[in-house]
């Protein structure tokens, strides 16, 4: 692949590719570093006129403020609950339906797949009105179920698409062997297919979790009451006070980013392969 002869010394590393790589890393992480550094700055330093690159007198005061005064802990708890219940439900439903669409002779399967794609295209703003009226009627506003149910429905089409594409690639012979041994369909699916489908489940799960963790429009309109606010709404409404307490805001933002950042790093291969297969087969 490499056409150039290797140069010597430091100039060996000063080629366009490495400089490009460096630019990618710096551009991606510098704003994030700025957020983390700012979360440790005191009230004077955060608005100082040449901004400081490293917090001069690092303080945890912002974190105390965010958790004690601004209840970010409560929002985090709400988000964890809503996002994980939604993810588990989406995985359960999409796994079985994905299996059915990949493996069983359903009539109208092509039509179902097309309908799923069309539905995942729908902009959320078009669904907010009817869902809002419905939830208002049913008394579901400001409840966990009021977010979980639409999150499950909205994330299902994409997860189903991923699961189905993944399950199509599992060799048929394995389940046939189990059937020949006398296992019923449910047992075959649970004991043979489910373990094999784990990578697909990880991919669908991480995409669903990140999407529900970050969802803003429905969370803002359905659960705006403080006790049921999720993290994105809590962080967005920081600004509604007259001065933005940026230190506290960033402490909350870091607290909201750490869980998702850790998850993404753990499952980064699932994410990359999910984007890849989604793009190749989608």
């Amino acid at each position, binding site marked *: *692949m490499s056409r150039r002869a290797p140069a010597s010394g430091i100039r060996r590393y000063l080629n366009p*590719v*490495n400089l490009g790589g460096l630019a990618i890393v710096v551009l*991606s992480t510098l*704003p*994030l570093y*700025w957020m983390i550094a700012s979360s440790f700055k005191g009230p004077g330093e*955060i*608005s*100082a*006129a040449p901004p400081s690159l490293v917090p001069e007198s690092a303080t945890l005061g912002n974190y105390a403020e965010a958790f004690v005064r601004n209840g970010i802990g409560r929002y985090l708890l709400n988000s964890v609950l809503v996002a994980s219940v939604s993810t588990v439900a989406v995985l359960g*439903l*999409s796994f*079985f339906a994905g299996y*059915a669409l*990949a493996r*069983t*002779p359903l009539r109208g399967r*092509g039509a*179902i797949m097309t309908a799923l794609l069309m539905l995942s*295209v*729908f*902009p*959320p*703003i*078009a*669904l*907010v*009105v*009817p869902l809002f*009226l419905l939830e*208002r*009627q049913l008394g579901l506003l400001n409840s966990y179920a009021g977010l979980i*149910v639409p999150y*499950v429905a909205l994330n299902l089409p994409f997860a189903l698409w991923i699961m189905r*594409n993944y399950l*199509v*690639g*599992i*060799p*048929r012979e394995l389940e046939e062997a189990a059937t*020949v041994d*006398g296992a019923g*369909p449910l047992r075959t699916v649970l004991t043979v297919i489910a373990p094999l489908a784990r990578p697909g489940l990880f991919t669908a799960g991480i995409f669903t979790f*990140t999407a529900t963790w*970050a969802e*803003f*429009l429905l969370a803002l309109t359905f659960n705006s009451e403080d006790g049921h606010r999720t993290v*994105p709404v809590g962080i*967005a409404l920081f*600004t509604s006070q007259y001065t933005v307490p940026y230190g506290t*805001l*960033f402490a909350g933002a870091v607290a*909201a980013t750490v869980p*998702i950042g850790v998850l*993404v790093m753990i499952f980064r291969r699932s994410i*990359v392969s999910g*984007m890849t297969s989604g*793009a*190749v087969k989608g």
Partner: protein
Amino acid sequence: MTSSSAASSSSSAASSSAATVSRGPDPEPPGPRTGPAPRGGGPARVSRRGRARTGWFFASPALLVIATVTVFSVLFSLLLSFADVRLEYGGFRILSLTGDHYAAVLSSPEWRHALVFTFGFTAVTVFLELVLGTAAALVLERLGAARGWVLAVLLLPWALINVVAAQLWGYLFNGTYGGLTWLFEQLLGHQPDILGQPASAMGAMVVVDVWKTTPFVAIVVLAGLMLIPGDVYEAAEIDGAGAWTTFWKVTLPQLRPIMAIAVLFRILQAFGIFDLPFVLTQGGPGTATESLAILGYKTLFQNLDIGRGAAVATTTAVIVIGCCLLFLRVFRTQADEGGRA
């Protein structure tokens, strides 16, 4: 591995191959005709009809959830867009059905402005993300050992909550003490009010969106690059093509299908943009950065004009779906001409 990949490719022709197999209702369980002959003493193979029943049994919970929540909402939203709706204590009432909302929406300057802004924002961000994402993917492909690390770093902005990204950049662009404002002050000699001027506020929104979603395009395009067989490049090299020619004549045509998918994804997201302008600019200054989704939200939840808000939402949905279909059609003809589908 060969057998499994063969199985996957044969069945990933999916609907078509499966449809041929299951064409027409089988009056009787086909028995040994389909599969390999049943091994002696083994239980009879499950009939096709039985398998179809299992399929519906497995698929119906998910399809039911999607149908009741999503399909119902789409239809209900359509109904509301033609209705005069009054909110009442604990509920709502549909007073009458009209077509007035659409006439009012389509002729209103707010809607036209939001449409132009949303289109412009989508076009500019998707174009920049495609160019920068492809460049980043080309860099990543050549990075060697460091690639895994750089990929991991790239995932961080992608994973960041939109609202957090908006607040973070809102701080950087802050008029009095933002880091970027300070930087611009050093360069220009005066403090720019980045989010306070229409043009620069729009530019700021583009910057944030490009920063956050270029990684997505880069990773998808990288996946496409990895799929290009090496002998294509060898052939190009033998033909004496330079790097630039190779990129335009070999790499880019091969990447087209995967780029099309990435672009389609991005168009959908950019066109429905809500959280970024809601937090970063609140649609301002004035209505400069008011997207269709923001306009819909304001009509619905600030003016409590349900019918008209539903009409705004419906126009957005129609345009998104129209764009998708148009894009797919154009892309498909191009792909047919280009040879590789």
